[in-house]
């Protein structure tokens, strides 16, 4: 079975769970009432399932090809699919109208990104990174830079990349060496080597705009001496058209485990011409604007691969006839029952659904806060920004951890057929693995959460999250149909509060306690957030059922939600127990004994 866009799930979230029509007064939502969103996602879904999905396996098998002159060829069909993407106007979806964008809510953009990432993760990274470059220039660029670069990036005519990593410097950007020498005309000459640059070179666009972190000669050491530069592959001429070739080249491609269709490049800068974005030595802050957006996008990749793998596994489980049901044949006329009758197969499928549905809700709910960052009400704006900061590392790490686990379970369901290359699940498993690593490894996300995001503004963000949950539980106290969900949520929140308190008491005293607790804390946080999402989903489904809706879609939500409470949420107890055990044993094991 090929990938089917989860249009119904998207519309249910937007219409029923998040009720986005309440934001009709915001410009982005005014442009897109729900019926228009439905049409947009329907058409986007066709593009993703009919154009991108059939190329997923092709990209995996062929990969990208590098020639000694530095040119990179993408897999067969990628160019045509990219042209269709640009002709469809999809790169402009969430971009600002001032630069040719459609200005639609980012939550709609997220739904599109989920579909394109499920259909073809390697392909979807090219426009994904372009959007990152767009955001960095939008936030930090001069008016002239915006005018020169943004329209081409928004339309998709030009691509964009992020150049951070160097051979000696990955997570720790303070070690960065690429240097920038000022030239007489106000530009800089950039020299150095960048590695693992996704989409660093390809044949999809007429120009590629590299955003490069480099150190201006004489700048302070460490992270305080890093600046951000625009280094286009072709220098724009007076009319903004691609002109002379810049001294930047792809020196080779990485061989890697997955995302073969995306060119992962070694980039060589040899006195390439670049222009400073924003202020000198403030590059890292700007790059983090981009990084936060990218981290949400990576969390989304985890979800998207999980969804695609789930779909393939569910289809396999319905069709594959092996063995008989433990309670007597369910397909008596056939040679065997479909493996879907087996409780342990259902366990894996429902694990996936329970996490995917609430995980998607969590992602959309967070992205919606991003859309509210321009809300006229200051309190709404502040909460929106707080939540974006707090939830981003949780979403990135949790959804990629679980997304990969879902891909692995999907392979388990498909058995030997899943391990062969006849089914797509092996590719999903391989492609999804990078998402736990890049844009800040999941351990780094956990540290960001406990070390930075929890403490920011005196813990304001997490306190307001707790208050929101309390208010919801109180408000629904009389709603008996929701009781199993509100009780589970209140208990989850109590555990998270206990874990948070423990961190505050023990993390400051001994930072290793915070480090040792961080991953378990992040998962505890995510399980609480997902409990909240399931309560919101159940409330919305109940409302439909109460209104006489007989479609099993809504009743099934309640079953999946109960499954979450019974069989996934108990992990929260284990997470709490682990995190409160502290770091003593962990650090006691002697280094030389490893």
């Amino acid at each position: 079975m090929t990938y089917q866009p989860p249009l119904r799930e998207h519309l249910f979230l937007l219409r029923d769970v998040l009720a986005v029509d309440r934001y009709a007064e915001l410009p982005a939502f005014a442009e897109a009432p729900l019926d228009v969103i439905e049409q947009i996602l329907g058409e986007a879904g066709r593009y993703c399932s009919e154009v991108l999905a059939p190329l997923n396996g092709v990209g995996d098998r062929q990969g990208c090809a590098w020639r000694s002159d530095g040119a990179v060829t993408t897999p067969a069909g990628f160019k045509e699919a990219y042209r269709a993407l640009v002709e469809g106007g999809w790169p402009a979806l969430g971009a600002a109208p001032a630069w040719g964008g459609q200005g639609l809510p980012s939550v709609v953009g997220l739904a599109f990104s989920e579909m394109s990432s499920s259909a073809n993760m390697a392909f979807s990274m090219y426009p994904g990174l372009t959007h990152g470059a767009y955001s960095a220039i939008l936030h930090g660029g001069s008016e002239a830079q915006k005018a020169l670069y943004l329209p081409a990036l928004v339309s998709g005519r030009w691509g964009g990349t992020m150049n951070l990593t160097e051979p000696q410097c990955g997570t720790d950007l303070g070690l960065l060496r690429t240097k920038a020498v000022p030239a007489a005309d106000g530009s800089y000459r950039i020299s150095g080597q960048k590695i693992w640059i996704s989409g660093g070179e390809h044949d999809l666009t007429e120009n590629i705009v590299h955003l490069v972190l480099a150190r201006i000669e004489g700048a302070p050491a460490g992270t305080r001496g890093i600046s951000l530069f625009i280094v286009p592959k072709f220098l724009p001429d007076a009319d903004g058209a691609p002109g002379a070739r810049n001294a930047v080249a792809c020196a080779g491609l990485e061989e890697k485990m997955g995302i073969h269709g995306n060119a992962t490049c070694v980039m060589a800068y040899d006195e390439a011409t670049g222009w400073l974005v924003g202020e000198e030595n403030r590059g890292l802050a700007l790059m983090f604007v981009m990084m936060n957006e990218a981290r949400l996008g990576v969390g989304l990749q985890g979800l998207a691969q999980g969804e695609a793998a789930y779909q393939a596994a569910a289809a396999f489980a319905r069709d594959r006839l092996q063995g008989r049901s433990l309670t007597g044949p369910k397909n008596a006329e056939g040679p065997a029952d479909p493996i879907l009758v087996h409780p342990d197969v259902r366990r894996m499928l429902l694990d996936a659904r329970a996490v995917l549905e609430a995980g998607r809700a969590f992602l959309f709910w967070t992205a919606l806060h991003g859309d509210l960052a321009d809300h006229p009400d200051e309190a709404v704006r502040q909460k929106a920004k707080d939540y974006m900061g707090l939830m981003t590392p949780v979403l990135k790490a949790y959804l990629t951890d679980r997304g990969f686990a879902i891909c692995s379970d999907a392979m388990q369901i498909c058995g030997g057929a899943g391990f062969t290359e006849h089914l797509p699940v092996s590719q999903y498993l391989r492609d999804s693995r990078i998402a736990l690593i890049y844009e800040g490894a999941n351990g780094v996300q956990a540290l960001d959460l406990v070390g930075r995001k929890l403490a920011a503004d005196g813990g304001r963000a997490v306190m307001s999250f707790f208050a929101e949950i309390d208010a919801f539980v109180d408000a629904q106290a009389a709603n008996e149909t929701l009781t199993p969900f509100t009780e589970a949520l209140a208990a989850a929140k109590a555990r998270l509060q206990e874990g948070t308190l423990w961190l505050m008491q023990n993390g400051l005293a001994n930072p290793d306690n915070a480090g040792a607790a961080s991953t378990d804390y992040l998962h505890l946080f995510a399980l609480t957030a997902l409990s909240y999402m399931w309560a919101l989903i159940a409330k919305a489904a109940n409302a439909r059922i109460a209104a006489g809706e007989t479609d099993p879609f809504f009743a099934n939500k309640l079953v999946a939600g109960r499954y979450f409470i019974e069989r996934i949420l108990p992990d929260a107890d284990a997470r709490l127990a682990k995190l409160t055990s502290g770091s003593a044993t962990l650090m006691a094991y002697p280094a030389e004994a490893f």
Partner: protein
Amino acid sequence: MKILVPVKRAIDSNVKARVKSDQTGVDLANVKMSMNPFCEIAVEEAVRLKEKGLAEEIVAVSIGPIQAQETIRTALAIGADRGILIQTDADPEPLEVAKLLKAVALAEAPRLILMGKQAIDGDNNAVGQMLSALLDWPQATFAYKIELSPQVVRVTREVDGGLQTLELDLPAVVTADLRLNEPRYASLPNIMKAKKKTIDVKTADDYGGAGAGHLKVLRVTEPARRTAGVKVENAADLVARLKTEAGVL
């Protein structure tokens, strides 16, 4: 030149139709609906004719429930200029549809009616031909290629075993076959533009009313399901069985 394009909201072509257990019809509750694929081809062709400067206005008309507005929106997003919905919750028979479309054609006075050869639900393949007969306008069904000029349209048609080319005086009715074109995906900017285009919601009474049906559906059943047969050992075994057991060689 004005082109009228009738479009039908029908079950999505990727969905397998399931017969209701009470045999009263096909279960369409919560089933994904889309524009009938042949209608989509007709809309695409009309838009291409407009893009070539051969037509000024494309009017999409649909007969169906209020949700058929979405189908018209899709046509508008592909490039039609405005829409007319004749709203009805009944499922009119082809003859009634043809009569309503005749009334629309007389009111709108298009030079060309371009429509799908059949809808993938009823599979009647009849409305275009009937509309042509009722209007006494010439017809060309199963179009593979259309060359339009101000007074005539030349249509190459898919016929059994090959192609036939006809020339029709305008106004005329042309129905689209699968190979006429490959419909584009509606682009995001066009979807956004389409929401500003008008759709007039009318009733059958505005066009002379819908007549009573002539056909009574007694039952709708599932076709006899094929069951998996036997796995043969090899090619020789297969040929032997086809000759003796099946008797088809």
